[in-house]
């Protein structure tokens, strides 16, 4: 798998993401600069990593969504390329219109940095096929604006088309209000594009890939990706 991580001014989890990708591919991904209008050739996966692009002084992700490289990312997706947006990256995908909905301020109005658990709602995607459907895994959450919002029709469509990839639950898989710390609509933690090739999620599975640091709960997501492209190659 050839992966590239976009670095916007204020991106700050690109190193974490690079470590996670290197763990499953054996090589460091390319770092892509936000001002570049083109992606390097042959890229399988573009990652929009976490952070505070442009300080998030405007709506989170709004500035980054309009930067030159995003045109190339959109083209990449349109041509069948894969895109993973985590945290600020998810916000950018929504702001860019590549995924529906928006990420509002957490319901508590506080930054939330803690573990959460997510239930895998679909295990037949390039991002999740190494999980069992209904499996629950733990990940770090670190955001001020992770409260997923869309109108009821959009939410119904997402649910109906099976595009809700991940949902906040308790460790034993119950989608309770208490497990949904940021107040996301229908407990949604991550959604897919209709093509299943674009995934946006708020928590950080890239922080759970190393047994010496904080366990390997997030590793199957990266193994899924690596597996998808190994099979294709």
């Amino acid at each position: 798998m050839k992966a590239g991580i976009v670095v916007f001014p204020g991106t700050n989890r690109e190193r974490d993401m690079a470590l996670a990708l290197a763990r499953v591919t054996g090589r460091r991904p390319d770092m892509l600069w936000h001002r570049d209008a083109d992606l390097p050739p042959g890229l399988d996966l573009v990652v929009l990593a976490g952070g505070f692009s442009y300080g998030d002084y405007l709506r989170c992700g709004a500035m980054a969504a309009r930067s030159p490289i995003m045109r190339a990312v959109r083209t990449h997706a349109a041509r069948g390329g894969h895109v993973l947006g985590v945290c600020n990256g998810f916000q950018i995908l929504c702001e860019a219109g590549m995924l529906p909905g928006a990420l509002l301020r957490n319901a508590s109005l506080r930054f939330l940095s803690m573990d959460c658990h997510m239930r895998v709602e679909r295990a037949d995607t390039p991002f999740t096929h190494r999980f069992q459907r209904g499996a629950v895994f733990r990940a770090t959450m670190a955001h001020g604006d992770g409260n997923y919002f869309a109108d009821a029709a959009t939410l119904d469509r997402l649910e109906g088309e099976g595009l809700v990839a991940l949902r906040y639950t308790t460790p034993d898989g119950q989608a309770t209000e208490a497990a949904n710390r940021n107040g996301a609509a229908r407990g949604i933690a991550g959604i897919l594009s209709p093509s299943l090739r674009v995934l946006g999620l708020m928590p950080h599975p890239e922080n759970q890939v190393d047994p010496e640091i904080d366990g390997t709960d997030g590793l199957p997501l990266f193994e899924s990706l690596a597996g998808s492209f190994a099979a294709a190659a």
Partner: protein
Amino acid sequence: MTADAPIPLDADRATQLAAEFGLKPEEYDRVLGILGRVPSLTELGLFSVMWSEHCSYKSSRVWLRELPTRAPWVIQGPGENAGVIDIGEGLAAVFKMESHNHPSFIEPYQGAATGVGGILRDVFTMGARPIANLNALRFGDPAVPRMQRIIDGVVRGIGGYGNCVGVPTVGGEVNFHPAFDGNPLVNAMTVGIARSDRIFTAAATGTGNPVVYVGSKTGRDGIHGATMASAEFSADSEEKRPTVQIGDPFAEKLLIEACLELMATDAIVAIQDMGAAGLTSSSVEMAGKGGMGIDLVLDAVPQRETGMTAYEMMLSESQERMLMILKPGREAAAEAIFTKWELDFAVIGRLTDTGRIVIRHRGAVEADIPLAPLESEAPLYRRPTAETPKQPVIDAAAVPDPLGITAALERLVACPDLCSRRWIWDQYDSMVGGQTARRPGAADAAVVRIEDHRRALAMTTDCTPRYCQADPEEGGRQAVAEAWRNLTAVGARPLAITDNMNFGNPEKPEIMGQFAAAVRGMASACLALDFPVVSGNVSLYNETEGRAILPTPAIGGVGVLEDVVQAVGLALPAGCDLVLVGETHGWLGQSLWLREVAGREEGAPPPVDLAAERRNGDFVRTRILAGEVRACHDCADGGLLVTVAEMAMAGGIGATLAAPPPGIPPHAWWFGEDQSRYVLALPDAAPLLAAARAAGVPALRLGRSGGGALVLPPGESISVGALSAAHEATLPALMMGD
């Protein structure tokens, strides 16, 4: 007068302004002597900030010299932007702690945020990538709404800045005491990693070399911040809000990346951040340390506002700015990097061989001051000291137990000083970077692995202000010993400390006496534990309307683990023997049990026997590194039973405990705060107890883990779930109003 020389102020006006700027009459006389004339406004501003307590350390320097600062692993001791120690494999740890107390009281969010920003710059200025932040906080009574607003603002400010720059906030400490009602303490610490052969310093060299300004633009914020930080508060302190700076963590993140990118080249001669007293202190210190002169042309300074005067630009404390001296001819390459990161870059002057700082603006000379006397004739005071009267040792047998053991435990784990800090750390990103192996609450010290290495750093902050109030020397000693102990408890080899000395008005002999005694105590522990001071910060005048804080020499300790997998946490596993290492007499003086349960805040604090400290700690570390120990936690606030309860709550596992030895009242055994002790959990105590006997280390089997309750003889029991519920409820309940 021509434009070639500064225009002096009117003599009477200058005298009056000098007083307003905080210069004492005798200090102003020195200014007149150095210049041989009345200063200009810019010159007077420059002298007053450089000679402020905050920048000059004029009251504390004579005492700080007593602190040990050397060890074979110390690369850079106090005097630079941060301390530097060798941690092996060609790596250096760069760290410092700094206060932002006064600004945080006036404007909690921005005060705390810019405190984090400032200490980050001190560390990456030296060429290090920041890998962790910690913070030591002291607040007043958390039941008071005004204090809740301060707590909320400070926590949001620390999180808002640290989360955005992408440096994990991994540890720290919080105390509450009414003595901090009018003067909370916000001490921020940053730890960074650099190559040990690539450390950058501030000493400017090379006549003609360009002086370069990078980062954010200069505005009118923070003018005279250093002066404000060198005075007591009064009822009108709200009016000082304009002296507080505004932080921009996004600009800081860009500045980190741009500086580190430039530092990977060999373009930089010297670099210094613009912290307190901004452009003044950075330019004066860089030229002064290098024995150079410096010419600045302020027209070139990137400005956020129009019509700024030389005085305003020199005294502004706008954030996220750095001053660098570049090698000749490297300006274009350096500018390209800063332009790429969308930061300002401007050549604002040159180094000279005149030994003077000359400041020009709009064609006129605004200041012309010889640098050597600015430093050599800076005021230095050996202020009068008065010893803190000793308090009597409290006889535990003479203190009745009004509550019983389990009820006292439940109260203690829920009291503000011991309750869960989850509400705070849940607002700090502790994981960014992907190297945090032990996050807040998981171990006695945070453990962060170094990227691409097996090695990890352990870090902690410690101080027990109520001990320092009762006996500043014992308290100073204890603060250093506890930092050493917390690093030891995760298995790390303690290497060095940074200190953040928070005290009241040094012009009062009892306050200066506290300071001198605390330094004495700290120095004794540093020496005995091979734990030198490599950086530090002093914050004095922490008083509001004449009421001083508890003396708080906060210690930030750093240690190293050769392999991250050696680290142990404090969470109790099931099926383990519990072993207590260290001696227990049942010391109740200044204990939290005495305060929270008996309602008495008195007595001599527990003494630290430094020989026992070292012996016990070296023993514990050896056993941890041998891989025998599953969990370890030092006995600190609250005593032995609180230690065990904290381990039980972290692990969600109970324990059955043995009866206290005869001769010690049970409440003194369980809640006394005797020092130099650890509780260890391991599958079988016998080999460890034998090793302890052989090493002359006091150790006994305390009980065995398992079940869901703490069971105490003669059959009292309390569920771990109930303890956790009480422990977790306190801060959210207090802060719910926000």
